[in-house]
């Protein structure tokens, strides 16, 4: 069962007392080849899990960096289908968990009940749909269960504790704690505090918990990891260094350097 890769990865890291590094990339920005090169660079530099962002025209929970990347990716043919192709290609040479992240309208267009099967076939382990709270998307959830693809729930600082049972009921894989009340790339989250909250959320869920939104530097990563979270997500900063570089090689190198630094931050090196 494909979902097993997530459990295996977090389990193995836990026994080595390490924090998972989760790296987000917008698929197709600026091309599939770039995404593949940067994904491989991230894995080589110590990323444990990859989130493959499915570009969407109206990403209302993303800040300017990822929103602009998404817009450019679409201009160049980026799509949910390209994200599946990207996963298939990566799966040929890596056993790292792969999670598709994005918004619901492209999923509806692809076919809510068809996506999980196609995703499993492409080697995808989980789906993280930003605008799909647990009350919605029953057909997708059922199909995901049948296909063995984890539906990763998001928990926000504004989530009331009474809601948690609903969020965790069908959750598998891991829980994603959003460290800021805001969009991706927002600044100013006191990460130590957020990490503590995330740890408690993970304990209540009985699943590994990763914390993300607003993590940029090795110091951020290390501050979060000291709180005992199981994983740290970096997205906007990865997309930003990719955007600044001028060719595929430079982009892969920039991602390698960024991720290496974050890895050291997490490992306390």
């Amino acid at each position, binding site marked *: 069962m494909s979902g097993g890769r997530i459990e295996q990865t977090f389990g193995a890291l836990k026994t080595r007392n390490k924090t998972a590094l989760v790296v987000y990339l917008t698929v197709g920005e600026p091309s599939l080849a770039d995404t593949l090169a940067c994904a491989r660079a991230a894995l080589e530099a110590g990323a444990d899990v990859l989130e493959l962002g499915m570009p969407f025209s109206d990403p209302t929970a993303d800040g300017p960096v990822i929103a602009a990347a998404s817009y450019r990716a679409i201009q160049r043919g980026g*799509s949910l289908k390209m994200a599946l192709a990207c996963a298939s290609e990566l799966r040929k040479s890596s056993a790292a968990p792969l999670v598709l992240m994005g918004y619901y309208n492209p999923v509806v267009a692809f076919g809510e009940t068809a996506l999980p099967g196609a995703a499993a076939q492409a080697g995808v382990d989980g789906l993280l749909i*930003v605008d799909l709270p647990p009350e919605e998307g029953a057909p997708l959830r059922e199909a995901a269960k049948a296909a063995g693809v984890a539906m990763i729930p998001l928990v926000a600082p504004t989530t*009331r504790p009474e809601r948690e049972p609903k969020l965790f009921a069908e959750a598998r894989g891991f829980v994603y704690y959003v460290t800021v009340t805001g969009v991706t790339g927002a600044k100013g989250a006191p990460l130590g505090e957020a990490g503590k909250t995330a740890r408690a959320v993970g304990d209540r869920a009985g699943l590994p918990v990763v914390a993300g939104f607003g993590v940029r530097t090795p110091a951020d990563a290390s501050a979060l990891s000291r709180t005992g979270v199981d994983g740290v997500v970096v997205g906007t900063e990865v997309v930003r260094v990719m955007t600044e570089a001028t060719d595929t090689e430079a982009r892969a190198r920039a991602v390698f350097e960024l991720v290496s630094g974050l890895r050291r931050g997490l490992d306390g090196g």
Partner: protein
Amino acid sequence: MPQSSAYFGEFGGRFVAETLVFALEELERAVQEIVPTESFQNEWRGLLADYVGRPTPLYRAKRLAERLDPTAENLGELWLKREDLCHTGAHKINNALGQVLLAKKLGKQRIIAETGAGQHGVATATACAVFGLPCEVYMGEVDVARQAPNVARMQMLGTRVIPVSSGSRTLKDAMNEAMRDWVTNVRTTHYCVGSAAGPHPFPTLVADLQSVIGIEARRQILEKTNALPDAVLACVGGGSNAIGTFRAFFDDPVPLYGIEAAGEGVDTDKHAATITRGRVGVLHGARTLVLTDDDGQIQEAHSISAGLDYPGVGPEHAALHRSGRAVYLTATDHDALQITREVARTEGILIALETAHAFARVLDVARRERERLGRPARLLLCLSGRGDKDLATLRERLGGEP
């Protein structure tokens, strides 16, 4: 199963980031527990009467009817519900006053809104002035340019207008930016959604607040003609003036017609005919009919009227279309421009370009209803707003002397 009240048939729901769920739940409770109370209703209705000028008149447009159908073979009578006479010039104020009052009661300290034509922005800015709350309005750059008078009005009212430069730089993108602001400031801020669209409970709340239009109009036409209208027409952007007019007639044997913007034509890629040409999708928090491509990317809409230039539609309209209870027609940019001039010259009323779309189909609806009835039809149309804001567009498109 989703909460049934969040859905209209298969449409509606609450497709939002987890961060916003608590605010929508809070608002949902407020809709159930505060809106129906006597104190809320008295305060809101008091403002509608003394400040907005309700009830708005129901006016019979004799010269226009004669102009459209000189023999009166199809069009017997045309009755206009004069929402243009509301303070600030459109139906939008009914909703804005209700929502800002509710936000105040919830202890919110700041109001944000999106606007296309600027009418909802002006209405929200006005309500915020009345209740003493700071207000910021997101508006696409294209609309900032084509609805300049409303930008100046908002600024005069003390509101900050934030131009949005992403995407098509129109209403959809203004709504994206407003949602991003809300995700960030949700603890202190109320997002005053301007149409019967968005995540639950907005479609229900906005329709409840706009229902005053249809309730008054139904009573007025009964008083004046001793009969119900043979059909009701309204333009449809997100769908708030239409749903506010339609609801009062749901239990009557009265056909309902919504008119969407066909832009340069529904067979071109420049239109905003979401119901006519859209497919099931999820946009701005609701499952509804949406202009979307095979990859699920939202397509850019086009309409000469900023208030209809939106690739989605309120979920209740999607459901009314699916069930057949309402019929949705379209009118092009050209149709809207031509009829605006006719209405001005025959009735002395400068209508908004949004509203013009409904006027453009009056004769077609009259013909359809005549077929059904075997006699000339008596139509009721929601005149949703006035057109001063559109003068620059009218002058440009109709020539120096429109």
